C-alpha cells in the first residue's frame, strides 16, 4: 500500500501529511512533484494544505492546472481514494472534482483553532471507521473556508449524502456559533457522488497524535488504511 502526497509550489502542509501517514499511521508514503503526470503505483492520494501559488488569483486556481491534477482526475475516475485537505479541498473545488466554491471567511480574518466536527456518513474510504454522529476535535487554519454552493447544489449534496462533516458544538449540534467561517449549512467537508473523493477544510494530519492536543484526525487515515486493506492493497 502506497500513498501519494502531491507537492505544488507553495504547499506547506505536505510535510505534516507525510509525517502523519508515514511515521504515525505507518504506511508507505511519497511526495509527488506537481509536474509529474502519473500516479502509477499509488493506492491513495492526500492533497495537502498550503498556499499553492500564494493563493494568488483564487485559492487552488493555478494548482488545478498542474500535470499532477490530470493524474488525480484519472485516479479518482478509477475509484481511487482522494482526500484534499484545506488548500487541497480548494484545489478539488477549482478542478471541478467536487461541487461548490470557497469564499473569504465571514470574519474576514484568518482563523486557526480547534473546532468540532460531526461525522455525517461513513460511506467514504476515509470515514468508514467513524460512526455517523461521532464528534471529532480537529483544527482549522484558513482565510477562505467559507463554503458556498447554490441552493440546488446544496439540496443535491444533502440528498445524495455527500456532506461528510459539519461544524458543530462539542455536543454535536451544528449551531451558528460553532461555524468558524460562515460555511453554508455548517459544511466542513463533502465528497463526490461516488464517495471516493473527499474535501475538507479542517486538518486531520495536525491532530493525529495525542501530544498535539487530539488524535481524532488519525481516525480518517486509519479508515483509509482499513478500506485499502479490504481491497487487498
Amino acid at each position, binding site marked *: 500500500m502506497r500513498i501519494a502526497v502531491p507537492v505544488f509550489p*507553495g504547499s506547506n502542509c505536505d510535510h505534516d501529511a507525510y509525517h502523519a501517514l508515514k511515521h504515525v499511521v505507518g504506511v508507505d508514503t511519497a511526495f509527488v512533484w506537481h509536474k509529474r503526470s502519473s500516479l502509477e503505483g499509488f493506492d491513495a492520494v492526500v492533497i495537502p494544505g498550503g498556499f499553492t501559488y500564494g493563493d494568488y488569483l483564487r485559492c487552488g486556481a493555478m494548482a488545478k492546472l498542474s500535470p499532477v491534477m490530470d493524474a488525480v482526475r484519472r485516479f479518482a475516475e478509477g475509484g481511487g481514494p482522494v482526500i484534499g485537505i484545506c488548500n487541497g479541498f480548494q484545489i478539488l473545488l477549482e478542478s471541478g472534482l467536487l461541487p461548490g466554491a470557497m469564499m473569504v471567511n465571514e470574519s474576514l480574518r*484568518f482563523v*486557526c483553532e480547534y473546532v468540532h466536527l460531526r461525522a455525517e456518513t461513513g460511506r467514504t474510504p476515509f470515514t468508514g471507521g467513524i460512526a455517523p454522529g461521532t464528534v471529532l476535535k480537529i483544527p482549522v487554519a484558513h482565510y477562505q473556508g467559507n463554503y458556498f454552493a447554490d441552493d440546488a447544489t446544496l439540496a443535491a449534496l444533502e440528498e445524495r449524502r455527500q456532506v461528510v462533516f459539519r461544524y458543530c458544538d462539542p455536543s454535536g449540534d451544528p449551531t451558528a456559533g460553532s461555524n468558524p467561517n460562515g460555511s453554508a449549512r455548517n459544511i466542513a467537508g463533502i465528497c463526490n457522488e461516488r464517495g471516493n473523493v473527499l474535501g475538507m477544510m479542517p486538518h486531520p494530519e495536525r491532530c493525529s*497524535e495525542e*501530544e498535539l*492536543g487530539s488524535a481524532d484526525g488519525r481516525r480518517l487515515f486509519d479508515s483509509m488504511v482499513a478500506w485499502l486493506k479490504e481491497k487487498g492493497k
Partner: protein
Amino acid sequence: MKEKPVTLELAREHGLSGEEFERVRAILGRDPNFTELGIFSVMWSEHCSYKSSRIHLKKFPTKGPRVLQGPGENAGVVDIGDGLAVSFKMESHNHPSFIEPYQGAATGVGGILRDVFTMGARPIASLDSLRFGRPDHPRTRYLVTGVVAGIAGYGNCIGVPTVGGEVYFDECYDGNILVNAFTLGVVKRDGIWRGYASGVGNPVIYVGSKTGRDGIHGATMASGEFDEKSEEKRPTVQVGDPFTEKLLLEACLELMKTDAIVGIQDMGAAGLTSSSFEMASRAGTGFTMDLDLVPQREEGMIPYELMLSESQERMLMVAKKGREGEVLEIFDKWDLDASVIGEVTGDGVARIRWRGKTVAEIPVAPVTDQAPLYDRPAARPEWQEALQRNPDPASLPVPADLAGTWMRLMSCPEMADKKWVFRQYDHMIRTNTLVLPGSDASVLRVKGTRKGIALSVDCNSRYCFLDPYLGGMIAVCESARNVACSGAEPIGLTDCLNFGNPEKPEIMWQFRSAIEGMAKACETLAVPVVSGNVSFYNETMGKGIHPTPTVGMVGLLEDAGDRLVQWFDAPGDAVFLAGADRMGECVGGSLYLKEVHGKVAGTPPPVDLDHEKRLQRFLAAAAAEKLLSSAHDLAEGGFACALAECCVTRPDGPIGAKVANPFPASVRPDFVLFAESQGAVLLSCPPGKKGALADAAERFRIKMKELGNVGGEHIDIEGVASVRAADLHRGWRDGFAKTLGLEG
C-alpha cells in the same frame, strides 16, 4: 532617478556627518561618486554599522559551551545535542510597520525568516513582540489590525507557525509602534552555513525576486527620527511576497544539502550593497559585480538604485567555481530567478560595473573596519530621580472595590486574552507545537528526538523606563523564568534593543544602563546572547518611547514530555508559592499603579540573581521529576493576577482556587493583590507529590509556602478578595477586542 553631483550637503542628506564624509574621501583618496556615496551612506547608517551601539554591545557575554555561532552572522546558533542545533534571531521592523502596518509587519517576518534559513536552518517557529499606543488612540486599532494581519499573511503562507509573543499598549508608543519579529530554526550541527565570500574566482550568484525600486534608503529611514512628513515616505515601503520566499526557502535548503556553495547571505537592509560587502569583508576578499546581470523588474534603474534597492525575497551566494550549473538548476526547478553577477577577487576591492563602465571602486575592508564608532555621551536625566521617588505608596488610596479592581486589571488589554491575535496566526502548522500560545512559554517538539524547545519573548518597558539597569536585568530574568516555568533550561537569547535618539545623552544612558543590567543577568544565569538587533531613533517629534530591550529566550527540554503549562490542571491539586521570600510590597512601575492610579513611576521590584538561578534550576528539576501540574511566575498584576491566570487561561475552561494570603496581615490589601515582585512562582501539584516537591525546593534552597488548593467556583484569596472564576474568565476573554473596539 538621476545621478546628482556629490557635495557635502548631499552627503548630509544621506545621513553622513561632515567628519564621516571626510573619512570616505580619505578611504577612496578622492571624492566619491553618486553610487559610492549611496554605498557608504547605507553601510555607515546606524542600522548597518551599529556605530552608536557597538561599543556597548561588547559587554554582552556571547560565548558558552553550547554556542556554535555568536553575534555577527545572519543569526546565532546554539547546540542542543544529538547532532542538532537551533538558529535564532529577533529583528525590528518598527518604522515600516508604522507607515504601512500590513506590509511593514509582513516584510519584518520575511526578513527574519531569511536570516534564519540562510544559516541552513529550517524555520520551525516565530514569535512577535508588539507594542502599540494607547488603546483609545485614533490610529491604534488600524495599526493593530494591520500588523497582526501582516504577520499572519506572511507567516501563514510560508508555513512557519507563529507560536506566541506579546502585545502591549502604552501612550509612549502612540507615534512609534514596535514590531519585533523572532524566528527559530533547526539545523544539523554540521550543516551550518555562513556569509563568506571566499575563494578567488568563485562566482557570485544572485537568487530570488527581481530587483525593483522598493525601499531605497530603508536603512537610512530606520536611522532618523520621524516627522510629520513620514507619511509621505509610503512609497519606499517594500511589499512582501511570501509565496516567492517559500520557494526561496525550499530551494536554498535543497541547495545546502549539496556542497556547491561556499557562502550565502540574505539581502536585507541595504540589499545588494550590505550583502556583498559584508560577505567579502568576513572573508577578507574583494569582488567584481556586473549590474547589467542583476534580474530587474523595472526599467531604467541606475547603479545607485540597483545597489540600494531593498526589494524583498533575494539572496546573494558564492558558489564553488564550476558548480554554478547545479545552483542554477535547483533555482530553475523552483521557478526562481538566479544569475551569476560577478566573482570573488583576491585584491580586497569591490569593483562594480554597469554598461561596460566601472561605476564604483571601493576597498572592502575599510568600509567595515573604518566604519565610524561612537562613544556617545551618556547622562542620567535629571527627571529620573523625581520619577523614581514619586509617588509615596502610602499616599495612594485603597480602592473600595478590590474584586472589581481585580476584574478590571484582568480585562485590560495588557492582561486580557490575546486569542483575537493568536487565532489569526497559524500556530500549529508543522505539527510541533505542544504548548499553544497563551502559556508562559510556547513549547515545540523536535521531531526525531525526545527534545523540546521552549520560547518566550519578554520585556517590561515600564520597568526599563523607571530604572533601565534593573529593567534590563528583569527582561532577561523574566524571559528565562518563563521558559523555566515550562520546565526548560534557558540556553541562549537574542535581543531587539528599541530606543530613542542615541544622540541625546539621556537616551544613551538608558541604552548603556539597560545593556549593563542585561549583561549582568546573562552572566549570572549563564545564558549567552547569540544574536540581536538595535533600533534607535524611535522618536516622533522629539518624544521617545520607553526604553524597550525585548528579549527572545530559548530553552531546552531534554524530554518534551516533561513540559509544563501555566494553568491549573485538576481540582484537589495543592497550590504552592515558590520564592515566598521574594514577595514584596513594591508597586513601582506596576500595572496596578498605571491602570488604577494613572501613574508610571517609582522603582521596579528588586532582583536577586543568585536566587533567580536557583529558582530556575529548581523548576527544571521539579519538571523533570514530574512533580508539578503547573508553574506560572508572578509578573504584571502581581499575586492576584498570576493566580487568576492559573485559573482562567486553562483551555478546558476556568477553574477556581482557594488560597491563603501569602503576606503578613499588616500589608494593605491592594498591595497584597497587585504589588509586583521578581522571583516568585505559583506551582500546583497532585497532593501525593507534595512531600517530594518540598524536598526538591529544600535542595535548591527555595523558600516555598503551601497556600491552598485548586477547585471550586471562586478564585478566593482568603480574607482579601474573591471573584467567581467564570466572571473573571469572561472579562479576561472579551477584554482585548472590547477595549480596542475590534469585532470578536
